């Protein structure tokens, strides 16, 4: 690696359903990150934005939109869109620019305002669009998460109580996070009393969509040393690898998987491929990880991710959960931010919010949510069609 890239500032606008313009959240997050870094906006020479496709044209050119809102000062700009992985791709663009020696300090920012109600596809008769097809046939987002959850039950013996326990665990720690949207401590009874949406998942097993904004200030190690922050958390890896053909797990919004019928082709799942590249790039293994922020679009999906990150053997995540090993204070705490269960998903901001959490944890600034002695953290999230990202931060 030619130059190391470190995180000297992190900021977030609290998640919620505020109904304001997304730019406002992004600016608030950026200003908090700048203040956290102790530098002025004029020090930044590259703005990398995570795009939002729900907020009109300004969202498509998010990098420039945020640069304008903070005050044009001649930075270069970039905008990345990769659904939930947008933030990681925006971070990768900034990191590459710094590693190439083309920039010293970059702002990475993502923010979103979510519309009310269901996100439905455009109407008409459009069988060439997989999103139209699956809605027409009655297959919604929770369908996919429920299929994965049910498979865990039939294959590994996971139970509804296990899924509820993920929610209880995350809401307990999320209740202590002032940036989280949902800060109530839910009980297993609360989860059991919520309506069944897609068997075996209930309303409280599935994450909501939220408004929110997250930002990072990243810079070269040289720059960080010059301002006395040479020990800031380093970005050890960013993985955005695709799965390998043939992907064997049906992914939103597809109606079918790839076929593995051709000679020499093996069926595989996508979530497992992301961390492999991340570990390799960081030069560490799952045994070195102190905490993980994973994409709990559903409670059961947190358990899948734990296994995909190789933090537990395949099929054993629920056993670890039952023993408290994935809770704060356990062997490998997962989602000590409260996760999507407590935040709800703000698409272009979410991957960055995961990295914000790791940054504060690795600095030891997380108060009563602090993972003691955290030195290495990993994130994982997923976009559409089975691509996603995984980021490793090291102290």
């Amino acid at each position, binding site marked *: 690696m030619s130059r190391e890239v470190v995180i000297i500032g992190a900021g977030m606008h609290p998640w919620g359903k505020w109904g304001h313009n997304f730019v406002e959240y992004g600016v608030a997050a950026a200003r908090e990150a700048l203040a956290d870094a102790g530098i002025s906006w004029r020090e930044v020479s590259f703005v990398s934005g995570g795009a939002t496709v729900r907020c009109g044209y300004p969202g498509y050119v998010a990098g420039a939109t945020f640069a304008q809102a903070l005050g044009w000062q001649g930075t270069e700009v970039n905008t990345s869109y990769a659904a939930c992985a947008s933030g990681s791709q925006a971070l990768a663009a900034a990191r590459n620019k710094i590693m190439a020696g083309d920039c010293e300090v970059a702002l990475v920012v993502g923010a979103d305002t979510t519309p009310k109600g*269901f996100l*439905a*596809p455009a*109407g*008409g008769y459009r*069988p060439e669009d*997989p999103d*139209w*097809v*699956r*809605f*027409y*046939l*009655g*297959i*919604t987002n*929770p*369908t996919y998460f*429920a*299929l*994965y*959850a*049910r*498979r865990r039950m*039939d*294959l590994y013996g996971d139970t509804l109580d296990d899924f509820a326990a993920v929610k209880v665990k995350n809401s307990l720690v999320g209740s202590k996070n002032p940036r989280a949207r949902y800060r109530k401590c839910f009980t297993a009874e609360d989860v059991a009393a919520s*309506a*069944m*949406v*897609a*068997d*075996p*998942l209930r309303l409280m097993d599935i994450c909501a969509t939220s408004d929110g904004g997250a930002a990072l200030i990243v810079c070269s190690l040289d720059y960080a040393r010059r301002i006395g922050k040479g020990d800031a958390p380093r970005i050890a890896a960013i993985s955005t690898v695709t799965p*390998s*053909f*043939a992907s*064997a*797990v*049906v992914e939103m919004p597809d*109606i*079918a*998987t*790839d*076929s*593995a*019928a*051709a*000679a*020499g*082709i093996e*069926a595989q799942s996508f979530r497992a491929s992301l961390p492999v590249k991340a570990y390799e790039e960081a030069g560490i293994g799952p045994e070195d990880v102190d905490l993980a922020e994973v994409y709990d679009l559903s409670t059961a999906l947190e358990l899948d991710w734990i296994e995909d990150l190789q933090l537990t053997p395949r099929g054993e995540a629920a056993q670890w959960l039952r023993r408290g090993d994935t809770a704060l204070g356990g062997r490998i705490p997962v989602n000590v931010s409260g996760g999507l269960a407590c935040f709800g998903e703000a698409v272009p901001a979410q991957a960055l919010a995961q990295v914000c959490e790791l940054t504060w944890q690795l600095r030891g600034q997380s108060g009563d949510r602090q993972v003691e002695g955290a030195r290495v953290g990993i994130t994982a999230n997923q976009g559409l069609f089975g691509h996603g990202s995984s980021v490793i931060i090291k102290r």
Partner: protein
Amino acid sequence: MSNKPLAPAIEGWFTMDEQPQLIGSQCCHCETYFFPAQNRYCRNPDCDSTEFREALLSRTGRLWSYTNACYKPPAPFVAAEPFVPYTIAAVELEHEQMTILGQVITGVDVSDLKVGMDMELVLETLHETEEDIKVTWKWRPMAAAITGGNAQ
């Protein structure tokens, strides 16, 4: 019962036979199957073929996983009033080595299903229009004990 004619909900995606089959495509070079049919480029990373033939997919497979829809999906789904929850299955086709989603026939509940069960493709009503009854493929458990109902 309506005496309107039956019509496929999505034109050209399945045969309208007594023993219906999904209409996919197969790469003429590497033999990879595609559903929905893919006729322009092969997605096998080791194949750059642009030649495909029509392929009728296996009618039976094994249950990969299953769930249901307890709430009415948004349009373009056309829901009956009142909305009746339905079951959904992902079924693995052994020969094609791929998994395909679809509703399960009316009358079969998630409690009737188990990963690994043998499933069969049938046609059933998706919704009615002014002119016709739109039918789609659905999965039916092959075990004799589970009959479901209302299958076309």
